[in-house]
């Protein structure tokens, strides 16, 4: 019994002894007693506030296993929550507003003299397949990606955490699965379209005239105009950055540490936000924004008047090389029944 009491006493005294060994200077400072808690120095060091990196030793042998705490993680998390999410969401909403305003103000940009019905071949079957494959994969990744990025501020208030967790899990699995498909379709896009997207003489005038959105009349362009080429290289360069950073994020088995993961995440998100916002403009100009543009990716043929208006140098080449086909020929190639057959049918039907 006596021994037990002695032991407790010893334990209570022990910390006092060790403190007495090396008391903090502040205690004896001339300013008097400081209010700083004794643990604060320790935690300041642990969190590496002074920029000094603590490298510890652990029995776990893996990347960053000696790191006691990821000091930059906080910074990264705050950047994601406050900046990426907020500005990203605002950017996407803003582009939507701009596109709607553009449509209200300018409407569908018509072709001078309207559509002629005479067509020229613009894209092959394979090129259209590649485009739409990339488009579908991109759209799926956009939706699942945005659920993951904007879910917290937008979806949780709407559906609650319970439901959002289901969405989030589904989106994460889907996003990770479709990611590599984006890389594959990106490579196919690169191989199919790279040559025609090399900048050439005359592209600059397009830029100087603001791509035709500002002012009246269309501006000069080859097979692809300056705007399209720029969009193409954005897709290729940013796309590859997104794909590679995505692969780094999805497979943390190649020795990449926290720092690389954070960097990849930031590149991945910023890149994706840029492509998503610009793609909204691309979709707008390719469909309801510009008369006759959708046809090219639908059937592979475009109206010659559209070609002359938007890609005059290519249009001229089509005229010169006699590549234009009549409306009847176009209808035939699309598998529409020729009119004389219809007449014949009614004649014989009588």
């Amino acid at each position, binding site marked *: 019994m006596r021994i037990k009491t002695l032991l407790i006493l010893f334990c209570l005294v022990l910390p006092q002894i060790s403190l007495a060994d090396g008391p903090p200077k502040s205690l004896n400072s001339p300013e008097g007693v400081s209010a700083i808690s004794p643990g604060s120095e320790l935690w300041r060091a642990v969190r590496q506030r002074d920029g000094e990196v603590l490298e510890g030793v652990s029995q776990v042998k893996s990347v960053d296993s000696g790191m006691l705490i990821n000091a930059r993680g906080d910074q990264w998390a705050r950047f994601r929550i406050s900046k990426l999410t907020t500005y990203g969401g605002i950017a996407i909403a803003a582009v939507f507003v701009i596109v709607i305003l553009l449509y209200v103000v300018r409407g569908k940009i018509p072709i001078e003299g309207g559509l002629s019905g005479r067509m020229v071949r613009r894209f092959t*079957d*394979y090129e*259209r*397949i590649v485009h*739409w*494959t990339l488009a*579908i*994969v991109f759209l799926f990744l956009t939706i699942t990606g945005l659920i993951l990025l904007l879910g917290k501020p937008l979806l949780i208030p709407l559906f609650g955490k319970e439901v959002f*967790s*289901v969405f989030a*899990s*589904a*989106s*994460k*699995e*889907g996003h990770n*699965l*479709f990611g*590599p*498909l984006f890389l*594959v*379709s990106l490579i196919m896009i690169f191989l199919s379209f790279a040559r025609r997207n090399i900048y050439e003489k005359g592209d600059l005038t397009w830029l100087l005239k603001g791509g035709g959105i500002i002012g009246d009349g269309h501006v000069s362009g080859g097979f692809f105009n300056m705007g399209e080429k720029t969009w193409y290289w954005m897709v290729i360069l940013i796309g590859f950055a997104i794909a590679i950073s995505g692969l780094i994020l999805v497979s943390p088995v190649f020795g990449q540490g926290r720092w690389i993961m954070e960097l990849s995440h930031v590149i991945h998100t910023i890149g994706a936000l840029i492509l998503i916002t610009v793609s909204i403009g691309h979709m707008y100009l390719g469909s309801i924004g510009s008369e006759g543009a959708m046809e090219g990716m*639908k*059937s*592979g043929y475009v109206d010659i008047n559209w070609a002359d208006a938007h890609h005059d140098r290519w249009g001229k080449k089509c005229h010169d090389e006699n590549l234009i086909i009549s409306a009847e020929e176009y209808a035939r*190639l*699309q*598998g529409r029944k020729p009119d004389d057959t219809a007449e014949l049918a009614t004649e014989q039907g009588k």
Partner: protein
Amino acid sequence: MIEYLIDGPLWYFSLAVFVIGVLWQLGSIVFAGRKGDLSVARGNATSSGFKNIFSRFIPHREIAPQIGVQVVAGYLFHLGLFALLFFAAPHVLFLEENLLGFGWTPMPHWAFIMASQAAFLGLIILWVRRMTNPVSRLISTLDDHIVAILTFVVMLTGCLALLEGFNALRLLHRFTVELWLIYFPFSALMHTFTFIPSRAFTGAWFGRRGIDA
């Protein structure tokens, strides 16, 4: 309630529709009355018919370059789908526990991911081609699109439930599978089975005339 329906009655109903529907359709092909051919055969119809079931997995050299997209995308999709269907770990376990009573070695997770990516890529390409190619657009029917989209949705819900952490996602997948099973016997999905008699009939026809089809 919904969980009970999807895991219970609807599952058995869809399974019954699938099995009876497929058997009925196949039966009406296999057991239909047929007239014998009165001409004198030159080659063996039976062996050619059997051979043709397999030989048509490889396109003729003379046409392969023209149909490259369909062949590559078709194989990506079908091989991926079969791998998923029969070798995905949850599927093997499900079949063992609910239908067969025995299982086999499922494929590893990385193989599952690659198989599903192949299947998705193939299906997307085939469907896009159906929508953009003038020939496919002309001959495709509503059923072809329903089948493509339904299969896509089944695969997608399966992959979204990959974490196996949420019952809602599992139920969603199972529900789409049930819709797919019910739709199966009355749609182009029947080609899963009827390509066998079709190839056999045509192979036999050519075979008895002494032609290697």
